[in-house]
């Protein structure tokens, strides 16, 4: 009767429970059945009469995608459901809802998507009674990051605290979430059909496939920009004795280490030597080793407030590097370096789109990495991961894993593709084109590329020329923003090519965008909507819907960051 997962959960509970707990549980179940008598199945009917609401909180669109898929399948199974962005949901209604299914993604250091923060805060503050509400939470996250699926977890716990009834245990799904979604859907349907709620403890249902770690070496590295450029974009080639399985569209994950200079400075504030041993929990390491893998930069408000006790003055920054905090605020007497290390989260991995194709580049992994430079006040800082890669010595071991990106894939060989990849956004498209070249794919390929200057910033120019000559690249449009008085970007080129662009879509072309999320991907998307609207003589709303349809069909895929 119970699904495998539920059975195993129950077994887990039962086998690990003490006598007292078992007796309590028995009573709880009896009480629950009394209380919710009305919900008990009337016979073995397969009719679902409840109307669940799917509320999703999304940052990159994955949660929305899960919610839409769920909704579609519900409809197929004659379950009347609705889906809504948490941003648009009125909290006042929640206590009166029957069944709510949350699909919630997690950002950065275990944070809610921006659109969901207000909802969570309001729910926390609410004094409404939610005992009528039955719910389930599907969390999305990336197990490479600390506080995996934390937003989902917080929401799940809070709803329980507020008296709502958990229908299914929290699901923590990893980046490759499709399998978890399928399982959750199956469980949901059976739960809804039987209208039974299972109030089990929130046990982690991990569907994360263990990520395989590889060791390789960087055997070649070159800055693609010529002298005089404002940019420093590295082309990096990694080889390994292992066979690295990846597909065009995949990324690699790298966990950078902090450089010893900064570690030395931090240790200095505590008058410690970096070689001194520090024990935290039952692990003893040198300070150098501890700090090399702890995140020291861009600490969030939450991390900073946890450290408050160890500083003399109140930290007012919203986000700051540890070394800047140490410089600005005097340490409290009781502060030891171990206190601080214990509070620091591990360095999160950084993902880089692979710019090679396994078949075309002898199984190597190529990356196209922009050395991230940004200004904080008057200081120019560099991104930890890009700096780490830029400075990583040749021919020394580097560890990485392959991050599958099932939502950024080449279509069938005979389908045309339009690739929009300014800046380092060109990375996966170098992989795409190289793959199609080596496979002899018949589909036409159109690339949009842009950067600042033609002379210094035309990434992979000679390869692109070869592809144009051989014909694998059908059409190229480039935009160099700073080569003329008026700024020209890829979206301008899309508009200039409106007719062809629409024609390609008409012919079934798949559309890809990779690169900066803001403002690039928004501007590009608006240009595409404008082109669709213009060329099809439909209004902007309809054009948007058309693009959304392409997205739902998997013909419009984005990899933006």
């Amino acid at each position, binding site marked *: 009767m119970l699904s495998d997962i539920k059975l195993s959960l129950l077994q887990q509970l039962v086998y690990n429970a003490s006598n007292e707990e078992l007796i309590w549980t028995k009573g709880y179940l009896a009480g629950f059945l009394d209380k919710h008598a009305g919900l008990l199945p009337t016979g073995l009917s397969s009719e679902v009469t409840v109307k669940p609401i799917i509320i999703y909180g999304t940052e990159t669109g994955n949660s929305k995608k899960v919610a839409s898929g769920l909704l579609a399948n519900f409809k197929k199974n004659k379950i009347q459901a609705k889906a809504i962005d948490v941003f648009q949901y009125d909290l006042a209604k929640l206590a009166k809802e029957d069944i709510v299914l949350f699909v919630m993604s997690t950002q950065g250091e275990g944070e809610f998507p921006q659109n969901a923060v207000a909802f969570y805060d309001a729910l926390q503050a609410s004094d409404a009674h939610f005992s009528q509400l039955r719910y389930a939470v599907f969390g999305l996250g990336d197990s490479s990051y600390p506080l995996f699926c934390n937003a989902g977890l917080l929401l799940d716990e809070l709803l329980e605290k507020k008296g709502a009834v958990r229908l299914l245990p929290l699901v923590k799904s990893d980046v490759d979430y499709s399998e978890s979604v399928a399982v959750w859907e199956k469980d949901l349907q059976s739960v809804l059909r039987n209208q039974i709620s299972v109030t089990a403890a929130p046990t982690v249902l991990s569907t994360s496939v263990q990520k395989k770690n590889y060791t390789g070496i960087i055997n070649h590295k*070159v*800055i*693609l*920009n*010529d002298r005089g450029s404002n940019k420093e974009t590295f*082309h990096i080639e990694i080889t390994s004795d292992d066979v690295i399985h990846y597909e065009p569209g995949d990324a690699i994950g790298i966990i950078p280490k902090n450089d010893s200079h900064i570690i030395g400075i931090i240790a200095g504030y505590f008058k410690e030597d970096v070689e001194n041993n520090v024990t935290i929990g039952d692990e003893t390491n040198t300070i150098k080793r501890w700090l090399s893998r702890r995140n020291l930069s861009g600490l969030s408000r939450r991390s900073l407030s946890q450290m408050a006790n160890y500083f003399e003055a109140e930290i007012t920054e919203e986000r700051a590097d540890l070394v800047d905090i140490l410089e600005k605020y005097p340490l409290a007497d009781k502060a030891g370096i171990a206190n601080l290390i214990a509070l620091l989260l591990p360095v999160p991995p950084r993902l880089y789109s692979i710019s090679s194709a396994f078949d075309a580049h002898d199984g190597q992994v190529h990356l196209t990495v922009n050395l991230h430079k940004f200004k904080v006040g008057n200081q120019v800082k560099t991104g930890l991961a890009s700096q780490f890669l830029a400075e990583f010595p040749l021919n020394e071991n580097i560890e990485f894993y392959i991050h599958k990106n099932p939502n950024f894939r080449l279509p069938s060989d005979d389908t045309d593709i339009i690739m929009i990849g300014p800046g380092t956004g060109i990375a996966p498209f170098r992989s795409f084109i190289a793959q199609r070249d080596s496979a002899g794919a018949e589909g036409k390929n159109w690339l949009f590329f842009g950067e600042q200057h*033609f*002379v*210094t910033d*035309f*990434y*992979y*120019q*000679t*390869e*692109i*020329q070869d592809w*144009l000559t051989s014909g694998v690249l059908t059409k*190229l*449009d*480039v935009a160099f923003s700073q*080569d*003329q008085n008026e700024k020209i970007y890829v979206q301008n080129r899309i508009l200039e090519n409106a007719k062809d662009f629409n024609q390609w879509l008409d012919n079934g072309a798949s559309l890809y965008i990779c690169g900066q999320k803001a403002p690039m991907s928004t501007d590009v998307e608006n240009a595409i909507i404008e082109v669709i609207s213009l060329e099809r003589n439909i209004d902007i709303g309809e054009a948007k819907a058309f693009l959304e349809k392409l997205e739902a069909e998997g013909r419009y895929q984005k990899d933006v960051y």
Partner: protein
Amino acid sequence: MSEKLSPIESIKTKSDGLRGTLKESLNDNFTGNVRPDDETLVKFHGMYVQDDRDRRAERAEKKLDKLYSFMIRLRIPGGVITADQWLATHDISEDYGTGTIKITTRQTLQLHGLLKHQLRPTIQAFNLAKLDSIAACGDVNRNVIASSHPQLSPLHQEIYDYADKISTLLLPKTQSYYEVFIDGEKIYERSSEADPLYEDRYLPRKFKIAIAIPPSNDVDVYTNDIGLIAVIEDDKLIGFNIAIGGGLATTHGNPNTYSRLASLIGFTDTEEKTLKTVYEILTIQRDFGNRADRKLSRMKYTVDKLTVEGFKQELENRTGFNLEPVRSFSFTERGDRYGWEKSHEGKWYYTLFIEHGVVRPEQKQFLFELAQLHVSNFIFSGNQNLILGNIAENDKGAVAALIESHNIDKTVSALRRNSMACVALPTCPLALAEAQRYLPELVSKIEPLLEKHHLQNDEIVIRMTGCPNGCGRPYVAELGFVGTGPGQYNFMLGGDRYGERLNKLYKEKFNETQILAEVDYLLGLYVNKKHENETFGDFTNRTFFS
């Protein structure tokens, strides 16, 4: 004509009036170059595509194409522009290219390092200033040059006007320059472009015309396909001596190539006859010139093929009149006269030394401010120097003050004043060795040797080119250096001071150490063994080659 035509010939004839696929080339977004055939055609519009050879390897590693850029050369017959035109050139050079303005040995200006997408705006801006680059390169008549010191002759203006008349007479008729680079649309009917001079073949090779006003041979008149030497009697211009078949370019290892000074063939007394003669010399070269081997296609080879006498007869057949006998004249100088000089009309001229024609930043700033005064014109000499000309007595003070405040009037050694070099590395595709970047350094190393032998005031003419094509006219220098490979030069000796005798190969493939040791030896020999008033060039010619 059994020989197979050079591939360049069919590019010309198929070019639809020098249009080719230039418009498409300008729009190709994947390369900074133009298409291969268009590389030939763009020259006729005054541009060369070049790539920075110093940067090839590094850019290849970065998966970047060669660093293509364009040199644009203006057509300035006689080498005179207004202050406003200088200001326009200044502004254009600030907006596009490397920022350096270069004065060439043919009295015009070049800008380097223009990117393909900057060509149209550059040419459009020049057009607004009434400057163009039509036929500045390519197999056509190039910029017509003329002796540049108006203060030397009251007839200067009258003679100088011939430069413009000849240039206009020999312009290609096609309007493609405007169509491709200015209007963007084809607005001219092909029928109006019929070109009886160039037809659709143009000339077999480049063509150079110079006008010399004795006593100065600052234009190196004998190195041109046509040299016109003004004949002045009783302060009147009575006509021109005509010389044909000059040209310096040779090819290393090709014994069929040679330098040749122009041969005097006669005299014409009226403007009509002079222009007619010039025109028909071109038609003979058009019809008889070698179109199979571009290394043997300059008119000097045509003249020797037909013989000077045979060429002259063909010319007289075509013009319908006979040339008169050559009138007497003499050259007594070739260099520029630096500093202040006053003309016969009472106007002032100031000649500024510009080493190898490369206007240095401080000079550029000075000239920019000077041009804003609008009190002078700008004259480019065949020695790559700059004359601020036609300055009224009242304005001289202001110019002098500006020269003073910019500390422009610097004395340099006589050898440096008389030095000349071509562009060579890194941009010239023909260069085998350094020239413009290196000669100043070599001169600095020779200067102590001159002092050692007390020759620092001797006006010895030194010239260097990066290859044997002779753009810096090294074959008519007293000390000539012709690049053969990196750091290696053929050492040429025995040319005279005024450009009337070619020098000869003295030592092959010398490096700097060898050059300096040899120069030291030669200067010592010269000081000890020279006849009275004998120039260095005459001395070495007598000592080593006669």
